[in-house]
């Protein structure tokens, strides 16, 4: 179980001279849910974008399944089994739900029916709306679609960027339940969240990012009990 699926060493990212991430190192083991929490601007999303290849890091290495993927093109990284649910959902508004799902499996050309049924199994609501355009879905349904779309790529590691963003608490609850079920089905999850309370409850391990550096790490339960984390992120 403790095989390292993703390993990040001394990752640095800067935008035009402004350092967003200043040398962070962490790893995700196969079968875990790992979460990165932190405030706005802590560098969570930047880290995730660098891992998925959307931006090139300034320094450091990203290793996925023993292979160096630092600075590779996103399609090369996706084809290795690393899918991302982007921040703010970013579903394709003018494509139908079904088309959105098929795009998620774009780099595979084998039979999709089985995976589509699997996604519909997680999200029966999407099946009802399969001919509807993505843009007409509610926020929660769009988030389901974004997760389903990423699952269509049969990821070894699923990265989610703030799946709770802008959703009602009850919907967030539902999304986290699904994250748990996806995890139980054998997918490793790297979760980025501002909703630290929810994230720490589902996570096996967690890292706290502050100003582009890792400020604390531990299991979800340890961090939930940590006084500093409580004060800064849990509001208790």
């Amino acid at each position, binding site marked *: 179980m403790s095989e390292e699926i993703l390993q990040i060493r001394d990752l640095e990212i800067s935008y035009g001279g402004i350092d967003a991430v200043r040398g962070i190192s962490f790893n995700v083991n196969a079968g875990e849910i790992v979460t990165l929490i932190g405030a706005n601007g802590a560098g969570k999303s930047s880290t995730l974008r660098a891992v998925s290849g959307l931006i090139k890091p300034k320094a450091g290495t990203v290793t996925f399944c023993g292979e160096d993927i630092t600075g590779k093109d*996103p399609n090369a*990284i*996706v084809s290795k089994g690393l899918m991302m649910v982007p921040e703010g959902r970013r579903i*394709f508004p003018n494509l*139908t739900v079904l088309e959105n799902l098929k*795009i998620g499996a774009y*780099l595979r050309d084998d039979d999709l029916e089985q995976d589509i049924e699997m996604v519909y199994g997680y999200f029966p609501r999407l099946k009802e*709306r399969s*001919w509807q355009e993505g843009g007409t879905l509610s926020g929660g349904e769009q988030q389901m679609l974004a997760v389903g779309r990423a699952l269509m790529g049969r990821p070894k590691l699923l990265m989610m960027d703030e799946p709770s963003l802008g959703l009602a608490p009850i919907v967030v609850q539902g999304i986290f339940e699904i994250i748990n079920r996806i995890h139980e089905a054998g997918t490793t999850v790297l979760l980025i969240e501002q909703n630290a309370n929810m994230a720490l409850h589902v996570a096996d391990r967690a890292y706290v990012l502050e100003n582009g550096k890792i400020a604390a790490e531990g299991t979800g339960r340890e961090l939930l009990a940590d006084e500093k984390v409580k004060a800064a992120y849990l509001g208790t």
Partner: protein
Amino acid sequence: MKQKNNLIPALTGIILLLVFVILLENISSLIPNLPQVFQPTSPLFTVLKKAAVYSLVAVSMNLLNGFTGLFSLGQAGFMLLGAYTYAILTVPSDMKDQVYYLFGGCAFDFSLVDFFRSIFGAGGFGGAVALVLACLTALILAGCVAGLFAYLIGFPVLRLKSDYLAIATLGFAEILRAIFQWQKLGPITNGANMIKGFPTFSDFNITDSSGNVILRLSTFVPFLLTTICIVLIVCLINSSYGRAFKSIRDDEIASEAMGIGLFKHKTMSFVISSFFAGVGGGMFAMYVANAQAKAFTSTMTYEILLIVVIGGIGSVSGSIIATFLYVACSEWWLRFLDSEMYIGGFKVPLLRNGFRMVVFSVVIMVIVLFFSQGIMGDRELDLKAITGYLTGKKRAKAKEKVPAGKEGDK
């Protein structure tokens, strides 16, 4: 699932349309004394031919602008490449001295027409086969040349976004037009003069030995060619590549995160669109029976852009419908506005040369105001939509059952 349901009606529709065009074209020789509209010289057939050519170009532009979200204005440039490629490759050798008389003959000593005639013979059935093969090869090569140029300029240009891409492609088309008019290139492009003498649509009319037309095919041929090309484009749009194009249009970053190579797919869309624009350019040369750089101005691109916008960005059938309406209005239905008219002794005011364009502009403004999404929006025309429209009540009920409202789509 849906596509299969639509396949048979779509094929029947296409075949019916093509049969209808042949009948319409030959009806004047079957039934005597028909009104002028049905005579071969009628503007009806000019409009049909031009619209057939333009609808291919409009659909190819829609593939790029409507389905991939790349705002390019280079269409006339790629048509020019296609037209010239077609013309240069098909002018028969015995016509070349006459066409290129200013430059003392043509530097390019090859003609597809002669080449195929040397295989199949010049007259009778062999001549017909030679003509068809020569034109098809030339049109495909016309598309390939346009596609090749698109591939080359795609490297620098496709990294640009929206307005910048439009400016760059527009500039490219203008540069091409200037180059093709350059006198130094005269022995190949005939300078600023037109190239003519190559096979046109009317060469496809079947004649008897004394030159009388037995079967007219001059309108059928552009329809057939355009239909084949548009069917290919529609197949592409409905394939997984088409889905990738649409996802790029919707959200570049998200489609990149899904593993879609942005640059590769943009280049693909650009090259394919230009290929068909090139074929359309070759067909345009066949339609006007000459190839001249002067004709492929940016105005032509704007005309096509207008058609795409009126028809609905992201709708193939919308582009086709809009082309026929646009060409019919500009070439035929509004012509009467250009000539002075007297009712009794009273001269109708305003009617004079050029007034047609004033009315035309007003019509376009009205369309844009009342159909802000174009005639079709991003929907497609199909049997269900038509029957649904004809029986409004049923449609309302169907909508209640399926709140998605997408039941009529392909």
